[in-house]
């Protein structure tokens, strides 16, 4: 039996009070409760504060390029369908630099859990607006305040056909952990957008700001796309948390013929046995 502590490694370089700590803790608990041994899990990430997670969670890790966690993850899935795959990323990483991969991987529907630490700001690069920053938020590069409306990742994911769409808050530990477990075990692409405070750079959406607004959606039918969209679009004085949508559809792995057998990784192979592929050219 592995305990949550067994999944903790390294010394996070995050600021004291940062929401990332709670997310890391919830992830360690979720992995422990799912009894997933570290060597069977891959945490794949881009670059950013959130994306440092592979260094702080005992598991296999692919800490790739800013914005490019999802394509790398897709490759990992193709190579080895036996591994549990978690993508850890920030709002800039996933929705900014990585926006194109976000929309297209939802279409592909690989079996992975995508945890986006959404602090509505670029943390690691010190406070520029992210795609989810609130209009009007003033930063060093948005000196007149953010001019464009924020991207709504959950509504976007729904419209792109995501089968699992959830919103969490780092301050709701139990709910976060349970949602993570549901996402990890969901067959297909599962997006969890996790609101959390950046104490250093986001002075608008503070812990209290979130605390005052979030509520757990209950009595919600997660199989109803329309109400999922409605919940996803609710933002302002009241911000619902929960699994808004959960309806599996065929995954990448189930659709690609080459992935129907054993994992591709580690299969024996002898080139000479392939000689007959030349016949078509004769």
């Amino acid at each position, binding site marked *: 039996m592995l305990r949550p502590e067994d999944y903790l490694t*390294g010394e996070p*370089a995050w600021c004291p009070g940062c929401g990332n700590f709670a997310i890391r803790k919830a992830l360690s608990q979720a992995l422990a409760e799912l009894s997933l*041994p*570290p*060597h*069977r899990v*891959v945490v*794949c990430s881009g*670059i950013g504060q959130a994306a*440092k997670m*592979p*260094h702080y969670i*005992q*598991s*296999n*890790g*692919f*800490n*790739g*390029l800013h914005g*490019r966690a*999802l*394509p*790398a*993850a*897709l*490759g*990992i*899935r*193709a*190579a*080895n369908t*036996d*591994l549990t795959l978690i993508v850890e990323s920030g709002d800039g990483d996933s929705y900014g630099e990585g926006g*194109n*991969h976000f*929309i*297209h991987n939802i279409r592909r529907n690989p079996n992975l859990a995508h945890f986006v630490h959404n602090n509505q700001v670029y943390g690691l690069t010190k406070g520029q607006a992210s795609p989810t920053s609130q209009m009007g938020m003033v930063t060093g590069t948005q000196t007149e305040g953010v001019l464009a409306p924020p991207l709504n990742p959950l509504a976007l994911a729904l419209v792109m056909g995501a089968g699992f769409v959830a919103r969490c808050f780092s301050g709701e530990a139990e709910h976060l952990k349970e949602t993570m477990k549901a996402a990890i075990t969901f067959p297909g692409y599962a997006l969890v957008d996790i609101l959390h405070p950046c104490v250093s750079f986001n002075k608008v959406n503070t812990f209290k700001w979130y605390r005052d607004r979030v509520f757990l959606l209950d009595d919600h039918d997660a199989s109803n796309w329309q109400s999922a969209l409605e919940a996803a679009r609710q933002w302002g004085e009241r911000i619902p948390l929960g699994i808004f949508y959960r309806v599996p559809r065929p995954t990448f792995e189930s659709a*690609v*013929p*080459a*992935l129907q*057998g054993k*994992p*591709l*990784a*580690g*299969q024996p*192979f*002898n*080139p*000479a*046995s*392939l*000689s007959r*592929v*030349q016949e078509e*050219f*004769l």
Partner: protein
Amino acid sequence: MEVNVLIGGAAGQGMETVMHMLGKALAREGYLFIATKDYMSRVRGGHNFSRLRIAAERPWSPVDTADILVAMNAETYRLHEKNLGRDGRILFDPARFSLPEEEGRGLPVPFEELAREAGDPIMANSVAVGALWALLDLNLDRLPGIIEESFRGKEEVIRGNIAALEKGYREAASRCENCFAMPPAGTGKLMYIDGNQVLGMAALASGCRFFAAYPMTPATGIMTYLAGKSTAHGLVVEQAEDEIAAINMALGASYGGVRSMTATSGGGFSLMVEGLSLAGMTETPLVVTVAMRPGPATGLPTRTEQGDLDFVLKAGHGEFPRAVLSATTHEDAFFRLNKAFELADRYQAPVLFLSDQNFADTHRSLEPFDFSRLGHNRCLAEAADVEKPYKRYRYREDGISPRLLPGTLPGEVVLVDSDEHDERGNIIEDAKTRRAMMDKRLKKDALLAAEMDEPGVYGPGEGDYLLLGWGSTYGVLREAVDLLGREGLKGTLLHFSDLWPLPKTRLGDLFPRAGKTFCAENNATGQFAALIRRETGLQVDHNILKYDGRPFFPEEIAAEVKKHAAT
């Protein structure tokens, strides 16, 4: 003894089918030939043509002259009649256009009319094939079988095309008996295959199990080949949303445990260079095939150039080891792409494989390859031997850390990192670890250098001139050397397949012994010659450069060499 055919028409007139039928049939007869393609970046209309050269001995490149012109449109005649010999023949449809009064070489065959008689005017190209077959004085038996294979199941289409073929054959045969003497054919069946198919097959046979790419001419053929094999051979071929995704997918798959590759052309490669740098930092094996076309930017999408050498050598931010290999001949490229996979695995580094449109789209008749010469050494650490705790970037004398696949060893995890990192793969910032990791990675430069094949030597190793080249120009440079030899100028070709780290031994040997030195490249700035200077201090006397999107002809090279070698 040889015959040269030039077949031209508009895009959409079925030239692909014509060439496929001819090539397939000739290869089955055992003829030695080469077939190249000159086509525009459009789907219909415009002017495309193919050159077919059949010879008694292996032809190394096409030539600019023709014995037979198959003119599917007036433009073919207008543009290419000057290339036709005095005894040449022009196959054309008099209903489409007429030849000038004074043109005595015409051999009109009503392609469309005969096709209509056979059932449908769109089979005009089968009529043309039949007519050409007659001019070449070949036996009609082979062709129907190929039509049957192409249209399997579509009985009516097959019947119609065969009828069209026969009509064309009969019409032309009656008009030109023994016009052309075909060189003798070999004994066995040969493959009819183009460069992209060679590369796709090499990847498949090297055990590549993941391929991601975004379509881009002239690399797309590799993807098409592999996609056709994916289900039967259990490999994943994924069309990415963009090239950035393609390379990052390929890296993920490699980390996950399979040999993987991506392929693109210059513009797409531009988008991949950040990923290339990631391969260097994470020490993830990866093969990237770059099929060059003329740039900058979109350039000339369907044409050829060797303009991305400099870029590929230095692409990606930061310093990291890489190998750069190139496609010279079809046989060599087949085994060399396998070498690329072997090097990538052995040295945990990105390997770039340079092709170009000229190579990609050139068909040849070829003996089947000996697959037992291919390697599949993954160079993974044995789980049992791994020192614990496992460290992905453990320091070792030679710089090559033990590579384990994630998930294979209970209790041990595999962490790769794009930041500078320590042996475990964790982010670091201290100067000492940074230096140690840079040194560790850069050690591979020397290891890779030791793996590089010296350039091929054609000729006596000395003489009036030394001709240097690399990549797809091998055939044409070799023919140029022969041509010069026939004209009394003796010299040597030194042709590079492995480009980086630059193999220097033969250069050092031959350069001082040479008369004038030449470097022929399909680019405007002489990139390879400059690389030689940077790496060896040796200065080539003359650059022979062509950058109009077309491959060299032997005559062009020979003329340049003659101009300067004498002086």
